[in-house]
């Protein structure tokens, strides 16, 4: 068990982040905390991709003589794109939350539901 934890700790971190993020997203009543949960969930996925690229004893993928073996640069590039997407989503979500707050005066999901269905 300890062996597995020692060699695969990144994957445990991924699972933990995904779990925490999803739990916050579903369970938190505060809209801003929901968005934070969404971010943590996405961070878990980013870490998963970066871990995929890892290679024991690998070098940064800058081609030079005798430089190999290299780590795979592809997942890094993908995640760079995904981070940009994540930032844009957060921005849109926060903008919507500001509009909701100015209109309803609350960030609490339950109170909002009451106001929303009236």
């Amino acid at each position: 068990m300890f062996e597995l934890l020692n060699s695969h700790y990144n994957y445990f971190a991924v699972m933990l982040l995904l779990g925490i993020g999803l739990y916050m997203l579903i369970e938190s009543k505060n809209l801003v905390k929901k968005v934070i949960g969404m971010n943590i969930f996405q961070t878990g996925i980013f870490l998963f991709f970066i871990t995929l690229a890892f290679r024991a004893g690998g070098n940064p993928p800058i081609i030079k003589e005798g430089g190999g073996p290299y780590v795979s640069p592809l997942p890094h590039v993908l995640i760079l794109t995904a981070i940009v997407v994540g930032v844009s989503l957060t921005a849109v979500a926060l903008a919507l939350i500001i509009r909701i707050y100015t209109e309803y005066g609350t960030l609490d999901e339950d109170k909002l539901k009451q106001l929303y269905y009236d």
Partner: protein
Amino acid sequence: MIEQLPVLLVVLPIIGGAIPLAASLVSDRAGWPVATLTLIGQAVLAGLLAWTVSTSGTVSYAVGGFAAPYGIELVVDGLSGAVALLVAVVSLGVLAYARQAGPHSGPFYGLYLLLVAGLTGMTVTGDVFNLYVFLEITGLAAYGLVASGRDASAAVAALKYLIIGTVGASLYLLGIGYLLAATGTLNMADLATKLGEMAAYDSTLVLTAFGLMVGGLTVKVALFPLHTWQPDAYANAPDTVSAFISALVSTVSAYALARLLFSVFTVEFLTAVPVARWALVGLACVSIIAGSALAVSQDSVQRMLAYSSVSQFGLVVAGFAIATPLAVVGATVHLLGHAVMKGGLFAATGVIERETGATTVNGYAGMGSRVPLPAFSFAVLSLAMVGVPPAVGFVGKWYIVLGAVNAENWPVVAVLLASTLLTLAYFARLVERLYFAEATIHSEPDEVPVTDGSGQAVSFGMIAVVVIAAALAVALTAAVPELQAMLEDTLPPLLNQ
């Protein structure tokens, strides 16, 4: 020129979309003309591309000159050509509606064109990660458009849509990670080859990837029970946006699901792992029944139409999952037909609400004589959706059922036939109210919707869109052989016939 068409289709609306956004600093009047010009260009290019594909086969383009499988490849075959043309034509049609119905602002048209770019990108891409990026562009633009409603409830609906939609897209991204770990490639065609060579369709890695990617996309398609964002988003968005996104967003996501099934995982995967096919067919069947049941119990017409989409997309996904040539042709016909019919129905609800203030099923009573043309179009579109011949809704369902019969998948046949009855249940109720019930609303609407100064709530363009959609719902039947010819070269390799 021809080989650059796929990339032009994506770039044109992005550039077009930047103009109204910049111009809105000076004037909000520039939005509509710019969007119209851009989308006319888009429709011409998409038509040219569809024509090229149907005459001389698949067109592919390596973005940035990096050859596939290392670079991003855009591939247009018969299926994606048809969907790209649909996106261009429907978005151009909805613009005629938006002229009067608004919202009248530069940023709105910027987002509108960005959504067209995202949808077209999802259609033409041949790379699973690129599909994720376009999925998120589509999502971002759609959240913004839903929130463009005057009412703050639109912002609540948009936030709900955003959170659920992001989880869906993130699951899809996680699935890409598993697929990348299994094969080391992201190109769809290359993925199909590598997965075939590995001959490990039932490995945990591949199965997890399938589950995550399909699960993520079904959130976007809004199959039951992942549909909860959809009724709020459709009902609270401005009428223009409801018509636009109900016609296209779920449609293109369903196309992406089909692309994933046939071009990445392939039919061999579905045969080798029957549980995957059954899970998908089961989800689709549950969606058909539950969507219809929820639609019957709605009071608001727009929410009823939204739940009807949940049910109709169940039908489409069932057709794709059965994966016999007939079923896939049927699912494609229903996918395209549904886009026209549902867009038209939402547009009609907008017109009827502006003319009379009616929004509920009971409010629609007696409106057949008060707003004859929109009400008649609404009735035609409803019956087309139920599947009354010769409307296009009938052809799609007929082929899907024939495909299911060929596959000897009897439970699905039963659900498909029952679904027609259920669709009739909620649409017949409305058509009956429209024509045979005593009017419950006699007064003019209290709050006169904001117009652009011409003094009338409903313009000729809005009525024209509704009438043309109704005409198309019937006339498209004539185009089905054309579509079949277009799919003839595309489907056999995809389905390994």
